[in-house]
């Protein structure tokens, strides 16, 4: 098992957001988290990534306890988080956006660009442009490509297709599908058709608790998934 979260409680001040959440992710597995807005999906991802310290429970990643560790330490352990808001470093060029991640991953820039091309094929055309000029879909591809540098073992992606047009959703789908088996992923997503196509396992979150764990054919049954939204 790559990631094991057990009995996770998270609170914003006195307001408890997650109640005894337990999830697991195997190596190379693609796990989706679905649920209504405010159910606690993003909080779960951000807590695993080191943004919030858990009030109770454990987070083990690759045999190491990472619960409450700073974000940079979690990232160095081999876990990357792609934020929901698709914010790249807008004032840096696309090349610099790749370079900042390549340097952290100790990769030569040329090799890093080559790897990002695997996810975002048209990236060479934009290298010298400010990243702020990219479309939402292009930004998402850049973020996913950048997160994959340094070969992380686990990618946490928050709502990768939110606000994207149909064509951009398809591009993100292809990018995620290409990484199948190479890297484990935990993806928060509301687009149930995407979940049905890509998920190997699904956790449904309701009011800060795991309401269901779906496997096999159930992950492709949109009416079942919809009942948790």
């Amino acid at each position, binding site marked *: 098992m790559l990631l094991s979260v057990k009995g996770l409680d998270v609170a914003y001040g006195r307001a408890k957001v997650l109640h005894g959440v337990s999830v697991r992710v195997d190596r190379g597995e693609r796990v989706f988290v679905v649920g209504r807005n405010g159910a606690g999906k993003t909080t779960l991802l951000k807590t695993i*990534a080191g*943004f919030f310290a858990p009030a109770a429970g454990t987070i083990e990643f690759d045999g190491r306890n990472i619960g409450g560790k*700073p*974000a*940079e330490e979690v*990232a*160095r352990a081999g876990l*990357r*988080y792609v*934020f929901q808001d698709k*914010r790249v*470093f*807008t*004032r*840096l060029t696309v090349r*610099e956006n790749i*370079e*900042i*991640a*390549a*340097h*952290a*991953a100790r990769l030569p820039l040329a090799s890093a660009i080559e790897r990002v091309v695997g996810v975002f094929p048209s990236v060479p055309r934009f290298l010298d442009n*400010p990243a702020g000029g990219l479309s939402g879909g292009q930004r998402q591809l850049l973020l996913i490509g*950048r997160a994959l540098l*340094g070969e992380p073992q686990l990618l946490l992606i928050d709502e990768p297709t939110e606000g994207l047009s149909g064509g951009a959703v398809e591009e993100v789908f292809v990018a995620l599908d290409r990484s199948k088996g190479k890297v484990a992923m935990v993806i928060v997503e509301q687009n149930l058709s995407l979940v049905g196509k890509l998920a190997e396992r699904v956790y449904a979150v309701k009011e800060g608790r795991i309401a269901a764990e779906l496997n096999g054919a159930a992950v492709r049954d949109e009416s079942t998934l919809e009942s948790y939204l």
Partner: protein
Amino acid sequence: MSALTRPKVLATLRSFDLAVIAVLFGLLAWVLSIQRVTDFVIFAIFVVSFDLLYGQMGRLSFGHMLFLGTGAYASALTAVHLGGNPVLALVMATAAGGLVALLLGPMTVRTTGACFALINLAFNQVWHFLALIAFATWTGGEDGLAVWMQPVGPLDFGDKRVMFAFALVSLLAVIWLTRRLTDSPFGILLRGIKQNEMRVRFLGYDVFRAKLLAFVVSGALAAFAGGLSALNYGYVTPSFVDPGRNVEVIFACLIGGAGSVYGAVTGGVVYMLISNFLPSYVQRWEMLLGFALLVLVFRFRSGLWGFVVSRLGPRAEET
């Protein structure tokens, strides 16, 4: 000028930037006076050091005079107690600035925004008090210290032409070094921190170390400028560490354009021209400077250099 040739003009200027800057300062010294322009050159180094913090890393400090003063006093005290070797004085000045930044940095760089600005101001205020009163036995208090330097080979700082040449070569070296730094992955990291520190942390960077390093380099460069100032004036007084003078470097940086080494140099020179010549014609010249700053903030948000670049190139220069 056609749209195609504009970026070329900028690229050509950038290729020969050091030579262009040297010639422009040479002309300025010829038109004005060597002593006055030496002051401009040293102030430009100080603005470049400030821009590393503010323009590159996005941390506005209200206490950068602390480092200028540290360098100036370190230089003067070296001259008084360790002989008048100017090279040693400058080495000690730079080292003292770096050391003070290394000591204060762990407290200051953890903060952002107003907190960062004010904590630096607080340290600057304390240092001013120490220089003026508490350590008056060593610093000379309000009277300050006289700085006597011996010539070292061709380096006779009593000769104003030598002082000017040395300061100019120092500025060119600082520009070259800053450009190397800001063009490197470390520079990209600083600009990433400026835009979104949390995102940088999620890439696996220890941002504290990066910010501390930038703070130390900035402090050391400012102290080097302070050391040069002490040599140029031949004395050091508490005005070298006066917290009220922080506004000068902030104005200069904004006038030139934050986030660009060329902007910092432009701002340094323009500010010095204003503060040297405007008082001859206008009694309350600071008021006009305030209005000028308002115009800049509303009309030329990227400063004079940013405006020039926007006219010459398709994309803002951010070295």
